[in-house]
């Protein structure tokens, strides 16, 4: 073993951001539970599609019922359904692993010592969570379109909107993409808040429990008529707006308002995450 050479005259005090982001995404995607989770998300539309075909049109109200013989509703129905619980939990899990999990493994310290600046670290972690949100939503959308066209079929390759009009495949795909983008926006808000909780604790499960608890509390608050005045503040109160994409003409009000609300949550969550991370002992 030769003695360590003298340090080369380099002055870089931080690694390139692109490399850090790529490493974060690689880390997220190498994690077995991420892959299992994404696999389950890909299954959601398939399971709904099979259920709709087996029920043969007698299956229920709402978007699932609207899917029968109208396959292009499936991706929107699946995303709307998953947004109520599964997608937020997936994002919360990613956020829990991102900071609290890294702390629990002692790896956050390693990153801070490299050093990765604390602000950059938040950016890195946020993009990892965002990638999970995008992949999970994208998988549901893509598998939903395929399963809708192949398994459910119907409507002559077109989409019958809730308003009773018929729109072409291209337009329908555009609407699926719109719902996917909107869903990712909502998930970004959940992710930002989950990251803030993650920056507050060393126990990943606390993050999951908080997000689950938050969803339940918001659901309950939103269902109490006497607390109607809270509706504009509850992130979940706009989560039915995805179905608007199936109306014609397309009303953007609901999705626009919930996106603004999500932006508010994202800014609050992001700001808190940064503030907490700048102070956090590692």
């Amino acid at each position: 073993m030769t003695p360590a050479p003298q340090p080369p005259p380099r002055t870089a005090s931080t690694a390139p951001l692109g490399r850090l982001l790529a490493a974060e995404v690689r880390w997220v995607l190498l994690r077995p539970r991420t892959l299992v989770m994404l696999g389950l998300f890909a299954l959601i539309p398939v399971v709904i599609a099979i259920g709709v075909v087996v029920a043969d049109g007698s299956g229920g109200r709402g978007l699932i019922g609207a899917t029968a013989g109208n396959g292009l509703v499936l991706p929107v129905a699946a995303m709307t359904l998953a947004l109520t619980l599964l997608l937020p939990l997936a994002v919360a899990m990613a956020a829990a692993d991102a900071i609290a999990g890294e702390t629990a493994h002692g790896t956050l310290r390693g990153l801070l010592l490299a050093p990765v600046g604390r602000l950059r670290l938040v950016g890195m972690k946020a993009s990892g969570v965002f990638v999970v949100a995008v992949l999970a939503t994208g998988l549901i959308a893509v598998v939903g379109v395929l399963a809708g066209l192949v398994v459910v079929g119907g409507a002559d390759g077109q989409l019958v909107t809730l308003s009773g009009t018929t729109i072409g495949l291209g337009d329908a795909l555009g609407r699926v993409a719109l719902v996917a983008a909107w869903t990712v926006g909502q998930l970004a808000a959940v992710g930002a808040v989950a990251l803030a909780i993650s920056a507050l604790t060393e126990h990943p499960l606390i993050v999951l429990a908080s997000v689950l608890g938050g969803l339940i509390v918001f659901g309950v608050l939103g269902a109490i008529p006497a607390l109607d005045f809270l509706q504009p503040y509850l992130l979940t109160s706009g989560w039915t707006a995805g179905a608007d994409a199936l109306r014609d003409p397309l009303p953007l009000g609901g999705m626009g308002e919930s996106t603004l609300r999500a932006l508010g949550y994202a800014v609050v969550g992001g700001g808190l995450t940064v503030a907490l991370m700048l102070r956090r002992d590692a």
Partner: protein
Amino acid sequence: MNPHPDDTAVAVAGSDGAQPALAPPTDPAGSPAARVRGARKVFGRTVAVDLIDLDVPAGSVLGMLGPNGSGKTTLIRMLLGLTRPTAGTAELLGHPVPDAAAAALPFVGALVEGPGFHPFLSGRENLRRAATAEPLLTGREIPAAVETALERVGLTDAAGRRYRGYSLGMKQRLGLAAALLVPRRLVVLDEPTNGLDPAGTRDVRRIIAELHTGGATVLVSSHLLAEVEATCTHVAVLQSGSLVAAGELSRLLEADTSGLVITTPDVDAALRTLRGAGATAFLDGDGAVVVADGGPPAPEIIALLVRAGVAMYEARRRRPRLEELFARLTEDTP
């Protein structure tokens, strides 16, 4: 890794490292590699570190000694900018921490509070992830740096296995590898031999010696005294959050009580002869005769005994073991 069962032999041979053989090379900035002034850290009502002033001279191997809970790790975390001192200042390679830690940290390798890696990744993948965050490595250099570090700690063969399946020693080695990914100016090792087998301990010593030879500063914390005695040029002794002694190891030991140790089959004759000549002589616990300094010089004592016909196996300078020094320092302090 080369299995070497004879730990004791290694420890004795390694005691040469305690000699101030190399003059510490001066840091380009002329400042110590790390420095704290008036450092104090309070967690709630617990004072973890209390008003410590300490320099880690550039080029030294400083062993930080202290019982568990004496504040070693907290002090190291303050130096690395991982935690903000409640009061006082800390400097790393001349840069104030934590505020300007980013300027110094690329040149600092650290293994603090045990190795931290992801269980689902292989050792190599874990190291790659760590290397990605190293500012001094370009993307192209990463694979080679990872392999070199793996080889240096003897983990090349196990690098493809998941960290989950690593033994305590392998985990420790991987942590060491992460600290050595880049040529460093300062390497901070918190309990590096924790969980290592004798061969692993020997490797850690070898690595510390290599770093030292290469001009890097090493800060090792340990509660294993033999470990520090074998590898360090300097020591700092912590007790209940306070620094009770710090300095060059050889000076500290020399300042301690010394004398001449004479091994003889004829203890009574030796004691009688020496006391007759006005020297302070007594019997130590091992049955050897100890002649305290302050009386006749050593050559005269030996000549005296030879003339008196006292048989001798050996006569040597008594050098107190670090263990004694440490025990005294930590017991004296309330």
